[in-house]
């Protein structure tokens, strides 16, 4: 019993000492990777694209804004609207974190919009 506790404590110490992202960010990326299963059939993980935009390496705020603009019907693609309707804010954040760390952006990406433009209520 004591040895098990000692083993876990030792492991925790090793995890904290590592030059990794914080535990919360690491969890977001793992969750984002799971959520991204259906995304990556169209939006390629390599960032390559043909007919469907590349979404790797986007700043997270820009990524979330793009998804929200489907939710708010500013953008019209029905597949993306369905997807955005289903995602809550945590899921969008996780996807944004996952896709950002996949590599540098392959297309020109907009700067994130200003704070006032971003203040909308989500149902």
């Amino acid at each position: 019993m004591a040895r098990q506790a000692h083993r876990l404590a030792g492991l925790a110490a090793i995890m904290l000492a590592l030059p990794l992202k914080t535990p919360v960010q690491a969890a977001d990326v793992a969750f984002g990777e799971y959520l991204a299963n259906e995304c990556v059939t169209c939006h390629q993980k390599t960032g390559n694209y043909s007919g469907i935009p590349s979404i790797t390496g986007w700043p997270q705020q820009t990524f979330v804004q793009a998804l929200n603009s489907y939710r708010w019907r500013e953008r019209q693609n029905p597949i993306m609207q369905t997807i955005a309707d289903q995602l809550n804010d945590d899921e969008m954040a996780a996807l944004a974190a996952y896709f950002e760390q996949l590599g540098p952006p392959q297309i020109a990406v907009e700067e994130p919009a200003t704070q006032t433009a971003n203040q909308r209520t989500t149902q």
Partner: protein
Amino acid sequence: MITRRVFGQWAGSSVLTAAAVGLSAPALAQGKAKVVVIGGGAGGATAAKYIAKDSAGAIEVTLVEPAKQFVTCFHSNLYLGGVKKFEEITHTYDKLASAYGIKLNHQTAASIDRDKKQVKLADGSVLSYDRLVVSPGIDLKYDSVPGWGKDHEEVMPHAWKAGPQTKLLKAKLDAVKDGGVIIMLAPPNPFRCPPGPYERVSMMAHALKTAGKTKCKIIVLDAKDKFSKQALFTEGWEAQYPGMVEWMAPSVHDGIKSVDPKTNTVVTGFETYKDAALVNVIPAQWAGAIARDSGLVNETGYCPIDPANMRSAKDANIYVIGDACIAGDMPKSAFSANSQAKMAAMMVRGELAGAKTFPARYANTCWSQIDTDYTIKVGGRYEAKDGKISAVENFISQTGEAAALRKQTQEENIGWYAGITADIFG
């Protein structure tokens, strides 16, 4: 004692839990866990790749697939229509071996010994497994159309498994003279790719129209009263190929009585069609033989699964994915197979390598090209609910949509194919 290999896996993508500490160390201490995947299509190749790439070397994956190159049934209609070349729908397995360490075994799986957890291959050799993923696709029911059988598939092709049949159908299509009649027998439910026969009708008409053969007729004798995206296809045929396509429900043609491959004749209760220029028989289907011969199917001829994880309802060590399984509201499609494969891969890694798992979520979109810059789609998202994989949301193209939207949908269709084939084989 925490080994470096175990630690490396935790530092990677999995979230550490106390339970994972207890479960994974003993499994790895016995050496690598073994997974065999039967079938190298959209389901099996995806499963093999996702199990291998995310398990940090803890799982040895063997992919059993007789073909050394895979020709996709999806977009084979575009090749028929002259929109894509055959090379564009052909893919190799090299990257799966070189990038992910998957062992390729280019043979047919002959049988499964579920008690011993072994797969026997055609040459008599045996593969042991801790978990087995069965993704054999469909087989054609050769006895379901009177007068037609395996001996006749070169004369009246099905081309419902891609490869030589696809090329054969294209050659026959291109040889049809102006004014020739093409007859398609469309299958009963459930079958691979619900909109597929109707995309094929569209692409055949497109090829004929492009060649100036607008006096040709395509007659569809369906086993069903209605079909996927019917209003959209009907609108498209009338607009793009006026007078060239006639679809008949069973109540109109009164049933297929027989076909004669020697004379390309089709006899229905309503009429006899003699000397057709081309007869495309798409017969009834069931799960691939390896699934049927191993007790994995039920009375429907397809494999029941646990919707929460794609595990076979008949064997806890076996997962069945893709066209061979009973997937509730999901259609039999490559997109579905790829989606199911990722869930199965996650669950296998959870069982064998202590990986974190999430609740199963599935998705599908089917694009169907009707003409140049004119494509329609249908799709949905799915979860385990009410004892099956149930749709939680659906979407479908609308009749009367703007041309610009239909063109954008075709661009998506092309982009999706590039994406999913990179996801499966790259």
